[in-house]
């Protein structure tokens, strides 16, 4: 079996009631039969190999969770084919569940009032894990994170970080070929995020587990994913490795200019007018080229330049001729801005693919 997950032209549609606004509207809805069809997932296809860590990205409401629910067998696709571990998930939900692990956002799937180790023991029985495999897994866990001290703690008393950690360990416990992680680092502090990323990476290496990860945190993507799939409004925008994506956008660099001595002390309006003057200067000489202008948090003017169109130094020289520049900084494009650019500009992406 070459692929652990195969999606072929998958569609998912929902029927929702058209709600009316206001008090009068709620009375109307009482009798309304006015439904509309919403296409949550539109013609999505992908194949995932064993051991891959795939970042599944997209803005809120893009259809990520819906796709994951279909892959786990909770939802049935309206059209198209899904094969997970050689089976059709929604037709064999329980059989499929045996071969996957799921962490769904902040919803703990552990028994709320039981100490963690009791939850693990129950999972051992439910998934029919052999004594040896169970012991080995716990030994592995103990070597990766300080889990021992959490064993006797009921889940309800845990911090969010501890709970997320426990949930991830629980998802890997029966050593499934695939684990789905839906925003695993949401709401966590920096050190906990790092801990969780290291854990996922280590478990993936150790057990060759395929990991499908949805996230809004580009730190997760940089740390974990070799491959990313991007979806927006239900349609797939991109599916390739992260290097490919960076190299396509590699021609882009960001030029940061400090136009006043203390830009951090400027008001919002003053900053905006600074940015506008930079914009006018750049545009008068390079009218036919594309730029993206924005303000950094410290009040610097930032210009995103496509170096395949115009050299960055040329732009900088031109600006310096026209206005006073106190300081300059150059930045390579970050994953963050790449993804933002993709959301903003679906057209470019078709070229990239």
């Amino acid at each position: 079996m070459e692929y652990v997950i195969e999606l072929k032209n998958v569609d998912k549609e929902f029927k929702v009631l058209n709600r009316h606004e206001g008090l009068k509207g709620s009375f109307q809805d009482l009798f309304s039969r006015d439904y509309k069809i919403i296409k949550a997932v539109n013609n999505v296809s992908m194949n995932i190999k064993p051991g891959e860590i795939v970042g599944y990205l997209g803005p809120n409401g893009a259809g990520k969770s819906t796709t994951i629910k279909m892959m786990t067998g909770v939802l049935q696709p309206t059209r198209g084919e899904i094969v997970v571990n050689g089976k059709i998930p929604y037709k064999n939900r329980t059989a499929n569940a045996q071969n996957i692990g799921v962490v769904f956002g902040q919803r703990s799937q552990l028994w709320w009032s039981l100490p963690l180790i009791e939850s693990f023991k129950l999972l051992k029985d439910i998934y029919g894990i052999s004594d040896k495999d169970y012991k080995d897994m716990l030994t592995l866990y103990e070597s990766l994170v300080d889990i021992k001290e959490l064993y006797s703690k009921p889940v309800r008393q845990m911090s969010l970080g501890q709970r997320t950690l426990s949930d991830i360990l629980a998802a890997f416990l029966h050593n499934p070929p695939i684990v789905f992680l839906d925003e695993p680092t949401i709401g966590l502090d920096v050190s906990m995020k790092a801990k969780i990323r290291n854990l996922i990476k280590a478990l993936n290496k150790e057990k060759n587990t395929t990991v499908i990860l949805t996230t809004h945190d580009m730190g997760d993507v940089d740390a974990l994913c070799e491959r990313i799939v991007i979806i927006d409004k239900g349609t797939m925008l991109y599916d390739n490795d992260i290097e490919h994506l960076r190299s396509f956008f590699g021609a882009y660099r960001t030029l940061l200019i400090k136009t006043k001595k203390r830009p951090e002390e400027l008001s919002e309006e003053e900053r905006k007018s600074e940015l506008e003057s930079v914009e006018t200067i750049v545009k008068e000489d390079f009218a036919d080229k594309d730029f993206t202008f924005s303000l950094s948090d410290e009040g610097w003017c930032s210009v995103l330049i496509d170096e395949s169109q115009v050299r960055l130094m040329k732009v900088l020289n031109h600006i310096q001729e026209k206005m006073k520049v106190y300081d300059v900084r150059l930045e390579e494009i970050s994953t963050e801005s790449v993804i933002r650019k993709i959301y903003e500009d679906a057209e470019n992406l078709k070229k990239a693919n």
Partner: protein
Amino acid sequence: MKRLGFYISIYRKIIIQDIKSKMSYRSDFIISMIGMILTDISELLAFYIMFLNFPSVCGWTYHEMLFLYGFSLVALTPLQCLFDNNWHLRHYVYDGEFIKYCFRPINIFFYYISEDFDTKGLGQFFVGMGTIVYAWYKLDLPVTFINIAALIVAIFAASLFMVAIMNIAAASCFFLTNSGYIMVTMNKFRDYAKYPVTIFPIFFRIIFTFIIPIAFIAYFPSLVILRPQEIPFLTWFSPVYGLIFFYISYRIWMWGASKYSGTGS
């Protein structure tokens, strides 16, 4: 059959753990227990007050009605102890939390229901048993093996009906946004079980026998012991009918769960 053994073993483990953790919240345990017993006592008081003013209800005496009531309390125990999580179902569904029950390789209904063992139901059991024993003594009923066996089978059948009715009521939240009222209403219906079904006109007797079968909860089974000479033919089928009805309620619950896809996100 192997599957059944698997489920029983898991169920036993979950329940033991759950009771252990419940016992560690002692004040909650005691307050809930008192609340439960108080509820039952207020109902007994209501009976008492009614019979102070009226000699009988449709030919049923005070002690016969007490028996019926005690019987319905004991038959309620499995529902209260084992299926109480049904009351939380609509919150899980509404918040989208229910999705977390869909990822395990075991039956969703089992997994969901097994999560909670409600200890306070035990208080109800003791009040109910006490009432049955008291009424039994006052009514001068014979204590024979047949009678005791009949009581146990009757309670078992009655429990199935109670659980089934509440399963269906709980499952309504898969289809409606705010189904809390349905559960409350159904719970009230279940309450009517403590009255003899003969008080109703024929049309409602049919409804309460076949559609919302509350007649099977306490009335038919109690007849076996109270008035063995008056038993309607149907009574003998109540355990079978109970099993069928429970199965139907289970199918409806599962159908709802499969329709569910998690609101939002």
